[in-house]
């Protein structure tokens, strides 16, 4: 049963086997994707025609590797920009929310807290369409009343940032709140007793204490934004993010260049995950 209790050989073996199968199930698609990125074939499938780096470096005309694929490169750049802004905004606002709900008392606090949790239970698609509608309504209203056309209110880069921010900020707030709850409030009192102002206390003591959590949450926010599909789908304008661009390619028939991009994404996210893990371990 558990480590300290005896269990039959057969039981232990079959349980172990089950978990092995589970891990195969987890990694099989990623593994196959990565391997086929190096297949010297025009299709992401077997048989194996030999090792090739064509889908990374080829410059055309028959095969265009990812490093020469301007459309996909542009999508990657867009995704990076989006993720950067989303991570920045949601980290700032999420941290404010954590302070607000953990340290302040005010009327309607519970209602506001409930609203903050709402993005957790609102499907991303709904968030996307309601923002699209609201932006459109606002844009129409402003154009009709002031005669100004605000590009922000049409599907565009900044609308995508806004849409992703609206739910990623909740995750940041929850992560930072969890850390803030473990904070010893006498440290704040001690700082105040030593003459610090409220802002001074937050800046010198509380934020320093929260720093690992804030950076960790920022990294997760970056990743969530980079990978977001559901909300982005409805808000995207002429600058598709990488997931949207990949989706269009996968839907309309694929070449191993997608495998190459996937490989880069897998390596990139694994690296980011490792760095994040390393830092969170170090703080403990």
């Amino acid at each position, binding site marked *: 049963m558990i480590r300290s209790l005896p269990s039959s050989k057969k039981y232990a073996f079959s349980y172990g086997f089950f978990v092995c199968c589970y891990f195969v199930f987890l990694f099989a698609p990623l593994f196959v994707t990565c391997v086929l990125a190096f297949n010297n074939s025009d299709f992401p499938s077997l048989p194996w025609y030999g090792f090739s780096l064509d889908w990374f470096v080829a410059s055309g005309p028959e095969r265009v590797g990812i490093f020469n694929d301007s459309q996909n490169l542009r999508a990657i750049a867009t995704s990076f920009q989006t993720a950067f802004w989303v991570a920045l905004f949601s980290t700032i606002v999420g941290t404010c929310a954590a302070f607000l709900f953990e340290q302040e008392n005010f009327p309607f606090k519970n209602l506001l807290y409930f609203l903050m949790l709402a993005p957790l239970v609102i499907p991303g698609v709904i968030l996307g369409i309601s923002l699209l509608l609201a932006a459109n309504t606002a844009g129409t209203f402003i154009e009709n009343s002031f005669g100004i056309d605000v590009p922000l209110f049409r599907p565009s880069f900044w609308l995508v940032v806004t849409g992703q921010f609206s739910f990623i900020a909740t995750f940041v707030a929850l992560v930072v709140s969890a850390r803030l709850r473990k904070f*010893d409030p006498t*440290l704040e*009192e001690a700082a*105040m007793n*030593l*003459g*610090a102002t409220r802002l001074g206390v937050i800046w010198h*003591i509380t934020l320093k*204490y929260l720093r690992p959590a804030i950076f960790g949450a920022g990294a997760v926010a970056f990743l969530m934004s980079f990978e977001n599909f559901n909300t982005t789908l409805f808000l995207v304008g002429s600058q598709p993010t990488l997931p949207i661009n990949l989706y269009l390619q996968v839907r309309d028939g694929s070449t191993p260049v997608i495998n190459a991009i996937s490989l880069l994404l897998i390596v990139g996210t694994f690296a980011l995950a490792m760095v994040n893990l390393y830092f969170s371990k170090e703080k403990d």
Partner: protein
Amino acid sequence: MDNDLSVLNLVKKFGDFSAVDQVTFDVPQGSFFSILGPSGCGKTTLLRMVAGFEEPTSGSIQIRGRDMAGVAPNQRPVNLVFQHLALFPMMNVAENIAFGLKRRKVDSATIKKQTEEILERVGLPGYGQQRINQLSGGQKQRVAIARCLVLEPLVLLLDEPLGALDLKLREQMKVELKKLQAKVGTTFVYITHDQSEALVMSDRIAVMNKGRYEQIGTPQELYGKPLTPFVAQFVGDNNVWSGEVVEQSGKNIVMKTDEGFVFRTVIQGSIAVGQHADLYLRPETIRIQPADKEALNCFNVTVKTILFDGANSRLLTVTPQEHELLVALPQNRSFDHIKPGQDIEVGWHPDAAICFRAEG
């Protein structure tokens, strides 16, 4: 002498519950003042009001004549050593000590000089670059005190800072704190539930119970002349009897205890024949096998067991009516013959006991 801290009719209510109830006291400049009471008696609330973390419901707090109402905690000339010290774990020792000075915008050369000086003074020279988690319990204690003293507060408040230390270190720190206070001359207000800490260190002690003050006095006064039953029981150990007064002339009374002993003693306050009284008797005032029994209240007890504790050894004895009685056992070899199970005679002088009229 001027008072550094004056508290007048201070009240703090949480809903219907009075945590601090009509408390008044003065702390003279440069003294070591302790507030002693069981946990939950309101002493921490009192201290937090002085520091400015709680607002009094009514009453006033004055620090060197200046009223503290409406003054924010970061503006008050008092500093607090927290129960769990609250040293900033993300800073080293020097940064912790410099924290308050930096908030006052002191220039960095002065900060450096003062930090080194104060570390020297608390006996931690050269520890500035150490991380907080590298320090021992006693060293943390001293950093926490140094962090406050460097700001030269008029009053230093200490909230049971020795509570987290182990026994040996606590004994040592008691003496050190007392010495440190004498050296720096800052007024210390120390709160504790440990009567021995209060007795050893303080110039004056206020005993607090259920939000109210029972008695203020020197350690000797509290121990020798407690004014209330609570103080008599809380400060030091006591044997207790209750009984009825059978004779009375002025302060001298004769009392018959519930188990039938007749004792001569002295009453605190007034009492009449027929009223009930409680008698408190310290273990060290009971003499074993007294030679001169003339003036003493004498009776026989059975030794149950010997509670050997070095210089603080005692006999646990019982009267024929199974009333337990602690008797001090001096370790001068003259009572080595006493064994458990033995019957011995004990006696005490009528002036040695403290007697109050029973309440209710």
